[in-house]
């Protein structure tokens, strides 16, 4: 059973996977509750575009190009959404598909060695030493922000008007959340894939909200669900050859979401009786 850890690439995948799962869950709760879920989706596509362009231009570590680009995109997407314009969601969809198109176009030019399949659906083998360092730093940062400012994060998420009235600089929190999300997505998308990473942000929070009715319990439950799905997905894809890890993790998320939904119906039903 534990021979899985005799492969160093699996150990790397476990470390990065679990850390990214924790970050995705924590940030996802805020993003989902603030109705910023689309930002996560948009960012993964921008990340794909940036990684492809960086690879074509032969940068040794495309990550260093993708990170600042996606952070910048996070800031802009946030601004678009914050202003509450009617077509904010349309603007995000536009940006995602454009970035995706640029990525695919660039990757298809003759003479490049980009593996589209790997970018779209992720691969355990894409995880390197760099990713471990970045994900450790990122997780420490996300956890520190969450623990130190937990109450303020709650206040800003729940009622921005009141938070601003009590002197909290809400835009700082919004920018911090979107920049951290940007880093999480860029690191996570290479393992889980462009098309699947946003599921990791949205699913745990939504799943937890089926059963948990307090903010703190939603946060804790999201982390547990998220980490469980990543670990289960990694084991499954290791023991069933050729099963892509990203898709497996998303399917686990879906299964738990359905399970929690059923449980919430049962709870409601039994309460009525």
């Amino acid at each position, binding site marked *: 059973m534990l021979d899985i850890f005799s492969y160093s690439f699996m150990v790397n995948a476990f470390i990065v996977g679990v850390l990214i799962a924790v970050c995705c869950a924590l940030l996802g709760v805020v993003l989902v509750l603030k109705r910023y879920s689309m930002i996560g989706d948009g960012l993964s596509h921008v990340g794909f575009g940036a990684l492809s362009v960086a690879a074509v231009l032969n940068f040794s570590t495309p990550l260093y190009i993708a990170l600042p680009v996606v952070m910048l995109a996070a800031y802009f997407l946030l601004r678009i959404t914050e202003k509450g314009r009617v077509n904010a969601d349309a603007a995000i969809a536009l940006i995602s598909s454009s970035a995706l198109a640029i990525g695919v176009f660039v990757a298809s030019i003759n003479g490049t060695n980009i593996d589209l399949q790997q970018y779209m659906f992720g691969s355990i083998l894409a995880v390197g030493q760099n990713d471990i360092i970045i994900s450790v730093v990122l997780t420490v940062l996300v956890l520190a922000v969450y623990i130190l400012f937990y109450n303020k994060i709650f*206040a800003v998420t*729940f009622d921005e008007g009141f938070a601003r*009235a009590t002197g909290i600089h809400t835009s700082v929190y919004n920018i911090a959340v979107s920049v951290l999300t940007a880093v999480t997505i860029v690191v996570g998308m290479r393992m889980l894939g462009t098309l699947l990473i946003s599921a990791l942000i949205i699913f745990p929070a939504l799943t937890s909200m089926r059963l948990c*009715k*307090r903010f703190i319990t939603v946060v804790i439950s999201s982390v547990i669900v998220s980490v469980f799905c990543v670990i289960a997905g990694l084991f499954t894809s290791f023991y069933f050859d050729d099963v892509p890890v990203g898709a497996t993790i998303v399917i686990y998320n879906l299964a738990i979401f359905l399970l929690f939904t059923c449980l919430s119906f049962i709870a409601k039903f039994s309460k009525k009786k």
Partner: protein
Amino acid sequence: MSLLKVQNLSLGYEGKVIVSDISFTVNEGDFLSIIGENGTGKTTLVKGLLGLVSKHSGEIRLSEGVSQSHIGYLGQKNLVSKDFPASVYEIVMSGFLNSKRFGLFYTKKQKQEATALMERVGITKLRNRTFSELSGGQQQRVLLCRALCATTKLILLDEPTTGLDPIATSEFYSLLSELNKEGVTVIMVSHDVTGAIKMSSHIFYLGKTESFFGSTHQYLHSNVGKDIMLQGCPCDSCAHKEKEVKQNA
């Protein structure tokens, strides 16, 4: 003692003046209602008082011991999504945020204070309930409790009874009245003029062309206020006026 003094205040966004040349004073223990038609800038004025809109000219002077971030604020219609997972207790406690910098835990004193305030506004039993499952009246009381956690000196309410049924509205009003009698200074923006007149000691009317500030009694007998004169006003001057009108007719 004056708690808040606004003098010749003008406010607006991006160079556009929305409210101009406003003056009024709020003393400790007052109940000031800010009334006026839609689009006259009541909400802008509230934001100005909270320091969220920069002022063009004039002055907002708060007495010592009160700061803009220490005004208990109950905003216009909370925009909380329908299924937001938050318990009543979590929301009430977030009122203390202006008095702490960071950290995961609230102090013991704050917890005791919150418990007392929850008892005061009658939501002790709701403590562990989910906010989104409560009725509109209960939700407003929770948010009022949060505002009181921020301060029990001066609370600022922006149309707190919008969307409440008549019973919940009158319950909310009587709670406000009681708090006011216990020494909490209240500033309330309201659409409900009759309710505002019954409750408040002072009225600030914000009109498109003119504004008025004075005691409720003065307001009722002023040019702007006489249109909404309550029927059967008991004061002498009204009876006198009625007689005059009859004689002229």
